[in-house]
C-alpha cells in the first residue's frame, strides 16, 4: 500500500483553520525563521480516513483475532473504559492546573481517581503506598530500582553492586538494573521451573543490592520457595523486587507484599485490561512497603484533613520527579473504571479463569508439544517445539502457520532459556470455542510438521505481505520516506 506521503497532491488540504480574528499580523525575524516548509503530506480528510482505515485492516488485534501471546496478556479491553477516558472533564484537564496555588480545588475529580486507585492497588498487592507516575512497566522497573538505590544510600550500604535476576526474566529487568548503575547476576532455574536455591545462595553476598523476580515466573510457575528466597535476600539487607508482569495470576490468591517483596510494578494493561495500542501507551505504577515508602517519587496524592485531595511534594528523601506529571492518567482512569466495575469478586474471577483456560490448553496440547514443566500451570504455559524442530519446523514456522489460520501467534523464543519456546496465554476473556479452535490448529500444525515440513516455509500466504527480509531492513537502513532508497549492496 502507498504511503500517505505518496498520496500527496500539491495544495490539497485536509483541514481549514479559518481566518484569523485578531488584527495582528506578526512574523518571525528571518534569523529565527524556517527556511523550507516541512514536507508533510497534502491530502484530504477523506484520503486520511481511507488510508488509516485500510491500514488498520492489515492488523490483527484483540478486537478481531484470538491473541494468545504469552507473557503479554492480550485480554479484551472493555469499551466503556474508552468512554471514561474521553469524558471532557478528564480529557481536557491541563496537568499544571493542579500545581497552581489552590489548584487542587479545580482538579478534585482527577486527584480522587489517583488517590482511590492507589488505595485499591495497595489492597490488592499488600503494599503501603503506590506511585501512579511510571509510564510503562519498564519505566516502573527503573523507578523501583532507583528506590532500591535510594534505600541503600540511606543505609550507607555503599558496597551494594549487584542485582540478581533469574534467567527466565524479561529483558527489561537487566536493562533497568543497568540503567540505575547496577551490574546483574543471572541465576538458572531448576527442573521444576523455580529458582535454583543453591545457585542463589552461592550468588548472594554483601554486595547484593537486591533480587528482581517475576511470580509466577515467565514459565508460568509459582515459586514455591519464595519465603526462603526473601529470607536469603533480606539477610544481606537486599531488596526484593516483584515484577508485576504476571500479577494477573495472583489476584485474591496471594499478594506480593505478603510474600516478602519490598517493591513492585504493575503492568496495567496485563492485569487491568487497558488497551495496548500497538505498543503503548501503558502505565506501570510502583508499590512499596514501609521500608521504601519515604523514597517514593513526587508528587504524591494525599487526602487532607479538610477532605480535599491534593498534591504533596514535601518528601525530603524522595527520589524526585520520574515523569513530567502524575502518570498516564487516561490509562489509569480506564483501570480505575475496570476495578470499580469488577469489584472484589470479579477481579478474583479474572485470575481464576485465566488459570483455568491456560491449564485447559496446556492439557490438550501436551500430547503434541513438549511441555516444559509437566505440572499445573498458572496463567500461561511454556512448550518447546523441539520435536517439531527436529522435523525442520521451528517455533517461528508454527507461528506463521497460525497467522494463516487467523490466529495471532503465541510468544515464541521467550523465555530465552527454553529452546524453540512457545508460550501460550489465552487470558480469561476467551471462550472455550475459540480455545478449541486454537488447539485444533496447533494439532494440525504438528501433523503437518510430520507430513510436509517443507510446506511451512511458505507461511503465511494469506496476508498482505509474506515473510519480510529483516536482514535487508537492518543492513540497508531506511526508516523514513525521505531517506534515499538503498540499492541491494549484497
Amino acid at each position, binding site marked *: 500500500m502507498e504511503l500517505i506521503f505518496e498520496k500527496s497532491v500539491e495544495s490539497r488540504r485536509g483541514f481549514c483553520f479559518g481566518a484569523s480574528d485578531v488584527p*495582528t499580523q506578526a512574523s518571525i525575524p528571518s534569523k529565527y525563521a524556517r527556511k523550507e516548509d516541512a514536507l508533510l503530506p497534502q491530502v484530504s480528510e477523506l484520503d486520511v480516513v481511507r488510508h488509516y482505515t485500510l491500514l488498520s485492516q492489515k492488523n490483527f488485534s484483540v478486537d478481531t483475532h484470538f491473541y494468545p501471546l504469552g507473557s503479554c496478556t492480550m485480554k479484551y479491553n472493555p469499551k466503556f473504559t474508552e468512554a471514561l477516558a474521553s469524558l471532557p472533564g478528564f480529557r481536557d484537564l491541563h496537568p499544571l492546573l493542579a500545581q497552581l496555588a489552590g489548584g487542587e480545588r479545580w482538579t478534585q475529580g482527577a486527584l480522587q481517581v489517583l488517590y482511590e486507585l492507589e488505595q485499591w492497588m495497595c489492597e490488592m498487592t499488600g503494599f503501603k503506598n503506590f506511585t501512579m507516575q511510571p509510564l510503562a512497566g519498564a519505566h516502573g522497573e527503573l523507578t523501583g530500582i532507583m528506590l532500591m538505590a535510594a534505600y541503600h544510600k540511606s543505609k550507607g550500604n555503599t558496597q551494594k553492586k549487584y542485582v540478581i535476576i533469574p534467567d527466565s526474566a524479561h529483558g527489561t529487568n537487566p536493562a533497568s538494573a543497568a540503567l540505575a548503575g547496577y551490574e546483574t547476576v543471572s541465576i538458572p532455574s531448576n527442573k521444576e521451573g523455580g529458582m535454583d536455591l543453591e545457585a542463589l545462595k552461592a550468588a548472594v553476598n554483601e554486595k547484593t543490592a537486591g533480587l528482581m523476580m517475576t511470580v509466577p515466573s515467565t514459565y508460568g510457575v509459582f515459586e514455591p520457595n519464595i519465603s526462603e528466597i526473601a529470607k536469603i535476600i533480606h539477610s544481606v539487607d537486599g531488596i526484593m523486587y516483584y515484577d508485576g508482569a504476571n500479577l494477573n495470576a495472583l489476584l485474591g490468591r496471594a499478594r506480593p507484599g505478603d510474600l516478602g517483596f519490598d517493591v513492585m510494578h504493575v503492568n496495567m494493561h496485563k492485569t487491568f485490561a487497558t488497551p495496548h495500542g500497538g505498543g503503548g501507551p501503558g502505565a506501570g505504577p510502583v508499590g512499596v512497603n514501609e521500608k521504601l515508602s519515604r523514597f517514593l517519587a513526587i508528587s504524591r496524592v494525599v487526602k487532607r484533613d479538610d477532605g480535599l485531595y491534593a498534591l504533596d511534594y514535601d518528601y525530603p528523601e524522595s527520589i524526585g520527579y520520574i515523569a513530567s506529571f502524575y502518570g498516564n492518567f487516561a490509562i489509569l482512569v480506564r483501570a480505575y473504571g475496570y476495578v470499580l466495575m469488577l469489584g472484589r469478586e470479579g477481579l478474583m474471577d479474572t485470575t481464576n479463569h485465566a488459570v483455568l483456560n491456560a491449564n485447559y490448553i496446556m492439557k490438550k496440547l501436551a500430547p503434541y508439544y513438549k511441555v516444559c514443566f509437566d505440572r499445573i500451570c498458572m496463567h500461561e504455559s511454556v512448550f518447546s517445539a523441539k520435536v517439531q524442530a527436529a522435523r525442520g519446523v521451528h517455533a517461528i514456522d508454527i507461528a506463521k502457520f497460525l497467522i494463516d489460520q487467523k490466529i495471532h501467534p503465541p510468544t515464541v523464543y521467550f523465555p530465552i532459556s527454553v529452546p524453540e519456546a512457545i508460550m501460550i496465554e489465552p487470558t480469561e476473556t476467551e471462550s472455550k470455542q475459540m480455545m478449541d479452535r486454537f488447539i485444533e490448529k496447533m494439532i494440525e500444525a504438528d501433523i503437518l510438521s510430520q507430513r510436509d515440513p517443507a510446506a511451512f516455509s511458505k507461511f503465511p500466504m494469506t496476508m498482505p505481505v509474506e515473510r519480510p527480509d529483516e536482514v535487508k531492513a537492518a543492513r540497508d537502513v531506511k526508516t523514513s520516506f525521505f531517506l534515499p532508497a538503498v540499492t541491494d549492496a549484497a
Partner: protein
Amino acid sequence: MNPYITNTPQEVKEMLKTIGVENIDALFGDISSAYAPQSFDLPKGLSEYEVMRHLTELSLKNNVHVVPFIGGGYYDHYIPTAVSSLSTRGEFYTAYTPYQPECSQGTLQALFEYQSAMCALTGMEVSNASLYDGGTALYEAMMMAIRTTGRHRVIMDGGVSPIYRKIIKTYTHHLSYQFEETPVVHGQSSREEIYRLLDKQTAVIILQNPNFFGAIDDLTDIIEKAHSVGALAIVSVYPISLGLLKTPADMGADIVTGEGQSLGLPLNFGGPYLGFMCTRKKYIRKMPGRIVGETVDSKGQRCFVNTLQAREQHIRRDKATSNICTNVSLCALQAAIFMSIVGKNGLKEMAQLNLDKAEFAKQLLSKIKGLEVKRSAPTFNEFTIHLPQDASGVVAAMMQRGFAAGFPLGRYYPGMERYLLVAVTEKRTKEEIERYAKALQEVLN
C-alpha cells in the same frame, strides 16, 4: 460478577474434567495456604452504567470550563475529529507491539509514516517510533549522547523545562556524571557561560527552543562551539512552533527531542503524551526505543518491520541502549494522523495563528498599568509577563473570573514569584483574549 468472562458453569466443569482436577481452587495448589492474602478488601462490583455515572460525576469536579492561557510545554490545541475516530479503531487500539510483521503491517506502516513526518518536521534524518514523554525523551537523549561520546560531563541550559531538568536529576542522581546548569540572560541562552564551560570532557549541551520562558533563539553558534570540542548538542523543541521556526537540523543539532502532545493529543491531566526523538543517521544505532524500517517480503513487495532490534533490551538485556519496551505507539499514530490532516500548509497556518494571537495578547496586556510584557527576545505562542504582585495570587483571582491565567514561574524558579508564563493558542478567540486582558486589569487594579 465479571461480564468479560465467557466460560459457562457447564464449560468450566468440562474443562476441569479435561485438566483432571475437582475445582478451580485445585489449580492453585502450588500457592500454599501460608501465602493466602492477609486481606483483599475491595468494593463490590458495579454495573457499567453505575461506573459511568460515578466517573462522570468525578469528571465534573474538574474545572475544564476556564478559558486556558496556561501552557508550560502542554497546550490547548484543536484536535481534528478524525484523529480520535481513526486511532480508536479496535484494529489499532487493541493490537500488541508489532513483533509479527505479517499481521501488523497497519501499525508498522503508520509508525513508519510517523517517523517520516517527524523527520520532515525537525529536518533530521531519522526518528524512532516514540518514547514516553518529552521529559523522559530528553533523559534518553542525554544518555545516548553520553554513550556516543564516552564523556561524562553535561551542560544544561536554564531555559530547558524545569520539569525535564528535575526528571534528569532523578535519573542521574546515583550516577557519576558531572552537571553544569547555565543561566538564561535576557530571555536567551547565555553564550558567555556556555562557552566558558564547554571543554573536551563535555559530552553534550542540552538546549530548548522556544525555551521555557517562550523565547525563541537561533542556537547555531552554540552548537558549532559544542562540535568544536567534540560534544554533541540536543535541542528539545515544540513541534507546532516548527511550522515557522528554524529547524533544529538547520542549527546543526545532533539529537532532537520534545513533547508531542501538541500533535493531536488531548491534555489528559498529564498523559499519555508523546516523547519523540530524531537524530542523524550515523547515530541511529545508538538511539533508544523501537525503530520501524522498510524492507521487502519474499515476493519483493515493500513492507515494514521493527528493525535494528539488536540495540534493544529483549536482545541486549543489560547492554541495551535503553530499558524501554512499551512506548506510546497509539500516540505516535495520533500524531501521524494529525500531521497528515493538517498537512504541509495547515501546519504553517496553525503556527501563524498561534503567533498572531499571542502577539495580539501581548499588545493588549502591555497596555495594563504595572504589567510588563518581557520583550528582550522574540516569542512564538507563549511569553513571560512581569506583574506588580505575586503571580500565584493573581492566577487564583483570575480563576474566579473564569480564566486559567498562566503558569506562575515562581513554582520552579525561586525569585521569579512575580512572573507569569502566558500561552495563547489558535483556539483562543479575539473576544476571549480581550476579556482575559480586561479581567487581568481588574485583578491588578
